[in-house]
């Protein structure tokens, strides 16, 4: 069993900078957990504390049921893959992979067997005699992963391992790492600032900002149920649109209202939004939940807002429309057959069952728990 548990972990650097504020996290055995956040959010520091490369100021880190705060990195039964690969330049690929085993006095035939096995898994058998300098970025990445695999550790730590690769290779390596995780049945903690990597690979995503864990959840829940505006904006590309608007009440009905934009709020949100009537809120909607009215099924005028098209970006499978609605810039991901052109006005339909409302002060998600992932996104 190799679960990793962080309890109230704090990191304060000698210069007084507090990089991590009381992180609590449970990584289950064989789980693929991604620490996600913008640069400087403390995710790498957290990983390095788990690795033992960074001292833990407060709190405890335990691996497989044992508190490892004062355990040397080499005795934590972990392996780490670094962003810049960190291969030993003077050693061949074989020696790079064998180094850790040699230091642990593993018998030679066993080393040979394990290195060849790992090389086989990663498809680098032909490169074993080469030096890192003679390898491409993708090959170096594989060697770095291989060096971790041969050790057969309880926990794998990855520190932005794909960020030095080009886009195409990154997509390919993403799938390979996921497959590897399945085959190795290992616990993986993976740091990245790329939310696509997080969404595609993780069993569980941990979103951090300024040293504080914002939300822990599977990819669907962080996508459909972001706890606050930060998470909502960080997950998803293009990112969620935010419009500063008011909740207004007319008769029995509640509306999201700003200048010319007036959208009907579904009844099931009324209870949560009651305290916000007449107040400013942040209205959030993902680009994929905005449709070109021409292609929407049974569009109702109560969900339509008029926008002015600034830029049209055809992507083939869909088209992004950058438009201005009531003074706010928004992006809509619409049907590629749209006829909208820059300068046009366009009627945009909002899928009000998928929208979010955030408290203007606390930025917390007011509608938390009302969008389950199973729900079919539909246009009314």
């Amino acid at each position, binding site marked *: 069993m190799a679960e990793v548990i962080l309890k109230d972990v704090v990191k304060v650097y*000698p210069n007084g900078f507090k990089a991590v504020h009381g992180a609590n996290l449970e990584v289950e055995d064989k789980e693929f957990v991604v620490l996600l956040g913008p640069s400087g959010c403390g995710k790498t520091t957290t990983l390095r504390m788990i*690795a*033992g*490369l960074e001292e833990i100021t407060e709190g405890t880190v335990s691996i497989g049921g044992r508190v490892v705060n004062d355990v040397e*990195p*080499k005795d934590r039964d*972990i*392996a*780490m893959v*670094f*962003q*810049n690969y*960190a*291969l*030993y*330049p*003077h050693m061949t690929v074989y020696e790079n992979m064998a*180094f*850790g085993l040699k*230091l*642990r006095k593993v018998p030679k035939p066993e080393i040979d067997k394990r290195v060849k096995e790992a090389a086989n898994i990663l498809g680098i058998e032909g490169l074993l005699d080469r030096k890192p300098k003679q390898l491409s970025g993708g090959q170096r990445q594989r060697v770095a992963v291989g*060096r971790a695999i041969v*050790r057969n550790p309880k926990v794998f730590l990855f520190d932005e391992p794909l960020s030095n690769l080009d886009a195409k290779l990154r997509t390919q390596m993403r799938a390979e790492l996921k497959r590897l995780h399945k085959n190795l049945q290992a616990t993986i903690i993976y740091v990245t600032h790329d939310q696509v990597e997080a969404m595609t690979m993780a069993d569980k995503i941990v979103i951090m900002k300024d040293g504080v864990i914002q939300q822990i959840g599977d990819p669907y829940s962080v996508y459909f149920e972001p706890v606050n505006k930060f998470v909502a904006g960080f997950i998803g590309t293009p990112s969620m649109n935010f419009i500063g608007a008011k909740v207004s009440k007319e008769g029995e009905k509640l509306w999201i209202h700003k200048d010319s934009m007036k959208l009907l709020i579904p009844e099931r949100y009324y209870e949560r939004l009651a305290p916000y009537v007449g107040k400013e809120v942040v209205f959030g909607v993902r680009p994929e939940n905005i449709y070109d009215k021409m292609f929407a099924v049974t569009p109702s005028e109560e969900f339509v807002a008029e926008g002015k098209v600034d830029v049209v970006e055809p992507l083939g499978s869909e088209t992004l429309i950058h438009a201005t609605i009531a003074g706010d810039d928004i992006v809509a991901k619409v049907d590629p057959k749209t006829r909208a052109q820059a300068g046009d006005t366009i009627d945009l339909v909002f899928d009000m069952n998928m929208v979010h409302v955030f408290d203007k002060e606390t930025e917390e998600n007011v509608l938390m728990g009302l969008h389950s992932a199973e729900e079919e996104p539909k246009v009314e």
Partner: protein
Amino acid sequence: MTKKRIWVKVFLNIFAWFIGLIWILPVIGILMTAIRPFDEVINGWWHFKEFTPTFSNFINALNHPTAPLIVGMKNSLIIALPATILPLFIATLAGYGISRYHFPLRKGLIIAVVLTLALPQQMIAVPIFQMMSSLGLVDTYMGLILLHTAWGIPWITFFMRNYFKTMPISIEEAARIDGASDFQIFYRVVLPNIFPAIASASALQFTWVWSDFFLALILIYSPDKLLITQRVPLMRGVYHVDWGLLSAASIMVMIVPILIYLLLQRYYVKGMVGWTIK
């Protein structure tokens, strides 16, 4: 290319060649004087009416009756080799420690190292002599080797520290996770990758020690112990200066560091990163 730019280029080329010529001229002069008999160069080496190349000056210098250069060469090697290896060994470890570990007064130590670099040798002449005298190390090679080692450690420490600063630390961290101890990291991962820095620091320190005249003058005076640099001035007679002999001796003093540079040239330039301050 416009006409103007061509002219600028031509001018710059001529200028560069001119500077080069000024620089190389004394070297050519000394070479020409060294490889010709005395009566051919008595009026200046630039007269080429007669030209009889000969090695006799070199042979005479090596076997000079009062100051044989061959013995000086041997003595200088006895000094220069340990006075290169010893400080390099100590200062490489020190530079690594300063660049990788945090400890109290680390900054003060770096400042002290830099300050000692600014110290002129003349300032330490008297105290060093007194100290060596009380240690009984005057006129011994051990004394001079220790002195050169001490003098070399600060700059090599600084040089190596700067070099280590340019190396990605994640390689060492990877080794730590792989299970290497601090010393294993240093010897098995760091050391094999700093050959350029070691090569250039060695070349510089060796040249420095080999060409040193001043410190040797303070400490070494027995005729049979004199170093190569100390022997050249002794070859000048009282009534007669044999320029050919002196030139040949000078060339032989210079040739050793030049050979070292040629040998280490491949690494030398790479290692110069050590002089960048970060």
